[in-house]
């Protein structure tokens, strides 16, 4: 049984999950709000309290804990990951021939959503109004494919896979056409779609596609196709406090109220006693609050400044690079306004 927190500390540091609502939602740690607390900004104190732990990292996903930071800033990182880290995506589609049953505009939209494996940091934004594009701001892709009958198909075949050639158009058919010196500069980059098995269209003999695409640099704010993440989210660390010793049948029922692995039963003097083992696994379903005899025995909360981030990349850039880039974007925003502020005050 944990010692209950001081009332003020609880309001400051915890979000309380109650039966009829969530309490203490907002950050209140501002100077003048609490007597006896120094809430002025102190970089040294921030550095002392800030912690970051990597929990899981692989090719496309990253989970990490960011502790000791306010939701305003953590949320800025999340929002930037979704909408302001640039990538390259198909923006202009030149359709020279499309005799398939899928309409030009639908096909163009599908092509736009295919993630293209190019490092956007090596490219510039295309100037507005520029229709041509150059080697520094454009990647050119070509999709040229025609469906025909398979001359080697057996007479009684009915499977389209056997009857036709090229009847399924996949993202791997989008071939990179280097512009200018790109063939030399990006010789090892292996430019093309991230996934080669995205079905774009289906054809029948005689139908063909002849398409050239221009990929440009952009951000998710402009169009979701530029978003570098499949998802980027955070949740607050759940905290479950047992206010009394809970044993026997009640303990068993308490265990079943939470996600597996959160509560375990311990043998104490022949009695089964409930114990919080890993509150991190909880989904915060608040199921326990539906049991009248249990709801007053537990306190459900979340740690206000403990963010469990989860970042899933689309495969264009590794997730750790995306997070670094997101932080750099916020720094750049600050610098932009600082220099603008300097020129404003100089003018006076």
């Amino acid at each position, binding site marked *: 049984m944990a010692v209950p927190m001081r009332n003020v500390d609880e309001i400051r540091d915890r979000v309380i999950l109650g039966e009829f609502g969530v309490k203490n939602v907002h*950050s209140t740690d*501002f*100077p*003048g709000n609490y007597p006896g607390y120094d*809430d*002025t*900004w102190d*970089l040294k104190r*921030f*550095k002392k309290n*800030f*912690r*970051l*732990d*990597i929990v899981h*990292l692989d090719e496309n996903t990253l989970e*990490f804990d*960011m502790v000791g*930071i*306010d939701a*305003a*800033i953590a*949320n*800025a*990182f999340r*929002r*930037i990951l979704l*909408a*302001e880290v640039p990538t390259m995506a198909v923006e202009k589609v030149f359709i020279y021939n499309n005799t398939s049953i899928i309409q030009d505009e639908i096909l163009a939209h599908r092509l736009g959503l295919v993630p293209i494996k190019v490092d956007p940091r090596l490219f510039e934004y295309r100037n507005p109004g520029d229709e041509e594009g150059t080697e520094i701001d454009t990647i050119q892709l070509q999709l040229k494919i025609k469906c025909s009958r398979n001359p080697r198909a057996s007479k009684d075949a009915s499977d389209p896979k056997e009857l036709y050639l090229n009847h399924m158009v996949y993202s791997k058919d989008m071939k990179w056409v280097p512009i200018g010196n790109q063939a030399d500069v990006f010789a090892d980059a292996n430019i093309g779609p991230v996934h080669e098995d995205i079905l774009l269209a289906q054809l029948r003999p005689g139908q063909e596609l002849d398409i050239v695409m221009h990929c440009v640099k952009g951000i998710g704010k402009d169009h979701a196709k530029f978003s570098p993440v499949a998802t980027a989210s955070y949740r607050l660390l759940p905290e479950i406090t047992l206010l009394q010793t809970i044993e026997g049948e009640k303990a068993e029922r308490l265990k079943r109220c939470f996600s597996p692995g959160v509560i375990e039963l311990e043998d104490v003097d022949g009695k089964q006693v409930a114990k919080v083992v890993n509150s991190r696994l909880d989904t915060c379903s608040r199921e326990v609050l539906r049991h009248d005899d249990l709801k007053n025995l537990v306190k459900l909360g979340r740690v206000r400044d403990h963010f469990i981030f989860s970042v899933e990349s689309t495969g264009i850039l590794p997730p*750790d690079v995306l*997070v*670094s880039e997101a*932080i*750099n974007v*916020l*720094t750049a*925003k*600050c*610098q*932009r*306004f*600082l220099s*603008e*502020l300097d020129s*404003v*005050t100089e*003018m*006076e």
Partner: protein
Amino acid sequence: MPTITPLAEKSVISVDDVYNVFGEGWSVTRCYVAMVTGLNIGETSSLSDSFSVTSMAGIDIEKKPVLEMVQADGADEGCVTFVLHEEDHTLGNSLRYMVMKNTEVEFCGYSITHPSESKINFRIQTRGGLPATEPLRKGLNDLTDVCKHVLHTFEAQIKDFRQQQGEAME
């Protein structure tokens, strides 16, 4: 409160117009007078001292404003609304948090004027007549420091994690 009326279809805006645009009772510390609309190349050459911006191709482009300061008439420089263009909650809320941490600041808040406008009004009121630009500058600097520290910690942790994984593989 006087409302801000949209710019009339004028090709070049003079400083007097700026006062007209914002109405009586408002003054504008900085206004980007380069919001030239519908001006063709021929006209530009005749207006050598105009504020229009000409791109390298000789076509007029709109110089987009980044930061504006709006003050009520008679207010001291401690009460300022900053208009941050092309920004939203991402910078607005994190900057508000940093500015509110400052004891010199009596009030700080922001609003998004309209969902179809990509700008925010960022209001700062200070104590004791301190210019509102100071807490804004400090807020931006503090936020930069936070970002630098978070980035530094993140990259160090990633490096450690990779190293540990490499060791576990061996």
